[in-house]
């Protein structure tokens, strides 16, 4: 991969730092009145998702990371691995480890497209769509005529996620959920 100098550090650039692929979030030049200039860089570690700061001497460089985001549909799990297929018509499949799947495990639904981040052709993270429609498999019975009141109750969805839903929701209903916050949005 090419090397990138601090001047070229822009939001979204993928670089290697301490052996892990990272995505640049922010880059700011700092310089005392006279003397050495530095770049104060905010990076997201793509393996852990954590955001941290690191300082570089201006002009220093980092190796680029071979990282790409591809859209893939979820197929199935064999218990060990989770299998996805590219949506570009190639039918190419990728197996994803639990570690890379992370929190997205609770938002999995067959035939829904996810963004799979590949590093050196290996899946390192899975991002669900912002909104997903899932069926309620378990919740307390709905309270008729309670649509106006603000109360909520837990509901277990077909993917395994547990979300707070309004009291009027019944088992078997399909709900639209915001995967970023885990919040109920509406009936689907």
């Amino acid at each position, binding site marked *: 991969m090419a090397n990138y100098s601090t001047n070229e550090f822009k939001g979204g650039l993928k670089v290697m730092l301490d052996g892990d692929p990272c995505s640049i979030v922010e880059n700011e030049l700092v*310089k*005392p009145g006279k*003397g*050495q*200039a530095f770049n*104060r860089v905010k990076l997201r570690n793509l393996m852990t998702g954590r955001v941290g700061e*690191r300082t570089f001497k201006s002009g220093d460089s980092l190796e680029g990371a071979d990282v790409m985001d591809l859209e893939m549909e979820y197929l199935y799990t064999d218990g060990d691995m989770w299998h996805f297929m590219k949506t570009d018509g190639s039918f190419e499949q990728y197996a994803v480890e639990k570690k890379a799947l992370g929190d997205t495990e609770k938002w999995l639904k067959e035939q829904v497209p996810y963004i799979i981040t590949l590093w050196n052709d290996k899946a390192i993270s899975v991002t669900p769509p912002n909104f997903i429609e899932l069926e309620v498999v378990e919740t307390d019975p709905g309270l008729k005529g309670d649509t106006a009141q603000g109360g909520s109750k837990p509901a277990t969805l077909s993917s395994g996620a547990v979300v707070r839903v309004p009291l009027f929701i019944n088992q078997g209903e399909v709900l639209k959920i915001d995967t970023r916050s885990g919040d109920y949005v509406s009936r689907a």
Partner: protein
Amino acid sequence: MTANWQPTASIETLRERARLIAGVRAFFAARGVLEVETPVLGQGGSTDVHLISLFSMARTDKGQRKLWLQTSPEFHMKRLLAAGSGPIFQLAKSFRDGEIGSRHNIEFTMLEWYRPGYSLAQLIDETTTLVASVLPSFVGPVVHYRYRELFHTYLALDPFTTSIDTLRVLAAERGQMSAYALADEGRDTCLDLLMSMVIEPMLGKNELSVVVDYPASQAALARRHQDADGEWVASRFELYLNGIELANGYDELIDAEEQRLRFSEDNADRRRLGLPEVDCDEQLLAALHHGMPESAGVALGLDRLIQLALGKTRLEEVLTFSTPNC
């Protein structure tokens, strides 16, 4: 996609900018300081290891010549002083390659002025008076600090005597830099990192902070003297407001031989670091040889001052077209 042709500053901001600049000119006119315009291009450039100069190739009467774009108008203005100009000021377009950010732009406006016969203390006084006049809402005090005192306060270390190994460890930790990247760096890089990352953000909070007595190794084009502790320090000051460095002033070096030595030391450092050498300004050296009056001089980032005066978060908001959009 259509190209982004819009200015980075609003038209309203440009009106405010013009008003502030008129105030700056009036300030100097009232004090009898002559406004001058010197060339942006010069046959000599800045040898400062930490500045990247731009240059252009020009067809001159001597054939193809490399002419340097100034990083500040210092050399030409000193030649005017040597020619007997008396006190002068200039709003000068200056260029520093690679410097882009919320407080930096490759092309920027420097407000630079020189006061023959002034002490550094007198120039500090004039500089803070000017800044206060541009920032009428600013009522805070002017507070003076010594470089050494700041390191004692914020880092509990002495910048002059702490061992290089200790400096590297602390700079890596507090500066969020890898120890590996600092392994070959000298004292000044470690001190610059700590100054930039730890101390500067604390300066200029509801006050104008003036920092003096920098290490002698950071004198640039300032004279050196021994401070009250017997340490050799640079006769130089920096001014800070809201954690932003605004101005850098010197008791100017006027010794031609010492100046030539500093140019060649810079170029030796450049060779050691694998950086291109810069032609040193022979005309400045000739002017110093002829004799330049003892003077204090200061360079102030005018765009930053306007940014602070108008409460803008990014420098580009006070520039018609920032470099990425020029």
